[in-house]
């Protein structure tokens, strides 16, 4: 039975209302900002929106570490990291535009809804001028759309789907990380020189947007080599057991297995494929091979022994020997005691690029920052000369092809860089069919 003690509760509430009534509006004020969250005080607030819970929590934690390091460097703390190697010298370590950099954090939970809710909180309540982060393309696309509506800049974190700067691109959004097309373009020559041009590929693909764009990209790149695609099989996201998908591979006549999986899925599918004895099997008179197009050091750690000799691509690796990478690895290692992941690298760079653009523009107005970043060329950030292309706000830079190390010397030393594919080889036209549809639109300063 429902029960109501109206009179008593009513009494309580009436007094509450009376209290609220007393707090009658004193002064009316319309926001007089030129754009959303114009920093008026002595500091500017950045919003770091990373997965703190869920499947990508490890990556999120590393991203947050990188952001905290970036803020420290921007405010003049620490050893300055990549600020010293960055080709643009606008930033001096005295904040941005004379304002101290502060930050707020949010948990995306790797869910579009939760990510948008926490981004909204940071924009509406905490007054964040920029949102950055994320470890999934779904979240990146969702938050990018939100930032376009609210009129703040979005600097994407780890997002590899073609769609982020393809059909879902937005004027207020920027991506430094590479994408599935680039993975395909970078991997193809290496695969050809190692495995030849007469191969039969079998795809296992995580059944969602990112998996599909990667499958499409890799299939196109390998078919251009002369490979045949035997079968493309979609596996549900988060399937712990892949044995039912791996058994048919043995009888399909394929001699290469391509795993379009990421995170825990990749760890599971690769480990099981190796346990099934796929590696080292002889098919069509050739050695059976496995390829993981998108690699990360954190995933390699999870898969352990299974990654040995497996090829894949990555955005950045801590063992790179250029000045920028060395400076970043050094200051990250000093602060946290272990080398940064590629997610940490891209997030750190994104934070610095935003700050630099604001400093060069002399303003935090999103439209000024868009103008400062479009077509911006820079170097010294660990990826060689890089271009932020104006047409789709995608960074174009060298892509690393890596292989699981046979004899790792430490728990972090799991991948070796076998090839650095130059930026020209992975560059595509802005209206490439895999990226077609959608418009960048106009930058939106909000307010």
């Amino acid at each position: 039975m429902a029960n109501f003690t109206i009179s008593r509760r009513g009494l309580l509430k009436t007094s509450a209302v009376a209290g609220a009534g007393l707090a009658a509006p004193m002064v009316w004020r319309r926001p007089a900002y030129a754009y959303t969250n114009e920093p008026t005080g002595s500091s500017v607030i950045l919003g770091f929106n990373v997965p703190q819970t869920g499947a990508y929590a490890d990556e999120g934690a590393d991203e947050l570490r990188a952001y905290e390091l970036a803020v420290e460097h921007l405010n003049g703390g620490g050893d300055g990291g990549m600020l010293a190697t960055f080709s643009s010298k606008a930033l001096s370590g005295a904040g941005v535009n004379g304002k101290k950099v502060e930050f707020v954090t949010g948990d995306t939970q790797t869910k579009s809804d939760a990510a948008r809710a926490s981004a909204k909180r940071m924009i509406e309540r905490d007054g964040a001028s920029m949102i950055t982060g994320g470890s999934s393309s779904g979240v990146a696309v969702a938050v990018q759309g939100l930032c376009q509506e609210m009129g703040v800049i979005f600097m994407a974190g780890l997002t590899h789907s073609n769609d982020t700067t393809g059909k879902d691109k937005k004027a207020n959004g920027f991506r430094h990380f590479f994408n599935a097309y680039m993975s395909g373009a970078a991997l193809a020559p290496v695969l050809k020189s190692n495995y030849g041009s007469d191969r039969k590929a079998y795809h296992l693909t995580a059944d969602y947007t990112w998996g599909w764009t990667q499958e499409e990209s890799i299939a196109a790149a390998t078919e251009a080599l002369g490979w045949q695609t035997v079968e493309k099989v979609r596996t549900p996201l988060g399937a712990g057991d892949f044995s039912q998908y791996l058994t048919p591979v043995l009888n399909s006549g394929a001699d290469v297995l391509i795993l379009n999986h990421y995170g825990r899925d990749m760890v599971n599918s690769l480990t099981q494929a190796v346990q099934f004895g796929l590696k080292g099997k002889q098919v069509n008179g050739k050695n059976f091979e496995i390829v993981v197009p998108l690699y990360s050091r954190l995933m390699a750690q999870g898969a352990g022994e299974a990654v040995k000799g497996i090829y894949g691509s990555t955005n950045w690796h801590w063992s790179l020997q250029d000045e920028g990478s060395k400076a970043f690895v050094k200051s990250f290692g000093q602060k946290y005691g272990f080398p940064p992941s590629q997610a940490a690298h891209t997030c750190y760079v994104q934070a610095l690029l935003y700050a630099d653009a604001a400093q060069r523009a002399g303003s935090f107005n999103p439209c000024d920052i868009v103008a400062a970043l479009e077509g911006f060329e820079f170097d010294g950030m660990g990826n060689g000369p890089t271009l932020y292309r104006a047409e789709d706000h995608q960074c174009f830079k060298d892509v690393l092809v890596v292989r699981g190390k046979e004899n790792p010397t430490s728990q972090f030393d799991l991948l070796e860089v076998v090839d650095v594919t130059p930026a020209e080889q992975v560059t595509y036209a802005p209206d490439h069919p895999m990226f077609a549809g959608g418009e960048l639109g106009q930058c939106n300063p909000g307010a």
Partner: protein
Amino acid sequence: MTSSKTNDRILLAVFSVLVLAGPIILAPFGAGYPDLLQKFAIYGIFAIGFNILFGLTGYLSFGHAAFLGVGSYAAVWMFKLLSMNVIPAIVFAVIVGGLFSLLIGYISLRRSGIYFSILTLAFAQMSYNLAYSVLTPITNGETGLQVTLDDPRILDGGAAGQPFSNLFGLNMIETTEVSILGMAVQFNAGFYVCAAILIGCFYISLRLFRSPFGMMLKAVKSNQNRMSYTGLNTRPYTLAAFVISGMFAGLAGGLLAAMDPLAGAERMQWTASGEVVLMTILGGAGTLLGPVLGAGLIKYFENIFSAINEGVLMDFWSFLPETLQHAVVSVSSLFVGEGWHLTLGLIFMVIVTFLPGGLIEGASRLGRLVTNRGKGENGAARPAPAPAE
């Protein structure tokens, strides 16, 4: 138990005032920003609807998030195809939510108890997986359905520029900031649309609880077998309750999309279905106000507690001596930030153990304590704990 019309009117009036003054009341708690206020109102609607099914009939549905998700997709498609005005989107969301719940309810209600719960859970999880991958052309899969610049929007006649959801030209994200007693208070157009609908829904639920139909549903909860033996077919009543609550869920989903034009598949996940069950039980199943309170509490934790990091804690405990401060911060940081689930779980355990009637029981016990009129602890006024099933 008799309840006079006057009391109901007072309840409705007080509820309305509290909801409308929400931005002022919640601002001191750091929760007075538009997005969270909207969420409070929307999940309040969702929980009110769930309570019509669970609180009245005792049928525990574990799949209500499916209706919420379907409502969101319906609304976003209206935005894409018809107009950015929220009215057609919300109406269509309610219709689709209702139809979908009719389908699922018709099948699931053939069973009761745990079997019913499992059936609804299975349907919801099925919908989630369909939305996540199989139906990607309709749902845009994992990325979520968004409005884009090149959508047809036949009623808006190709208006250029960024599309904003609006009510006849009033943008939902329009916010006026006012300083009240030195506190910045944000009055947001979207929140007031949600608030008006929440008050309407509360009124409907109030009337439903008092109606003969509501009485029939309560009878189903207390003893369905007895009702069948007296020759009454209970199925139409339970189905009607299921569809009504599905329509409430569709409405909530539509409003979510209206406030923020995006529909993602994870809105339909089983955790989202579990959340509305938690909200209702936390607030008090079978009570009118309880679900709204429970929804507010959970959303507050999800959005505010999860955002507290060590820096904030350091400030909070700064009055302590430094060594003690660090110790207190390291302990309390377990319960905030990513540990907000832990805090919520503890609160849930405490409430279910000591206040089976939820927050509402706590409030009425408190009320009794204050007005202590000499009624014994075991007096007749003590509310019967609402059984979960």
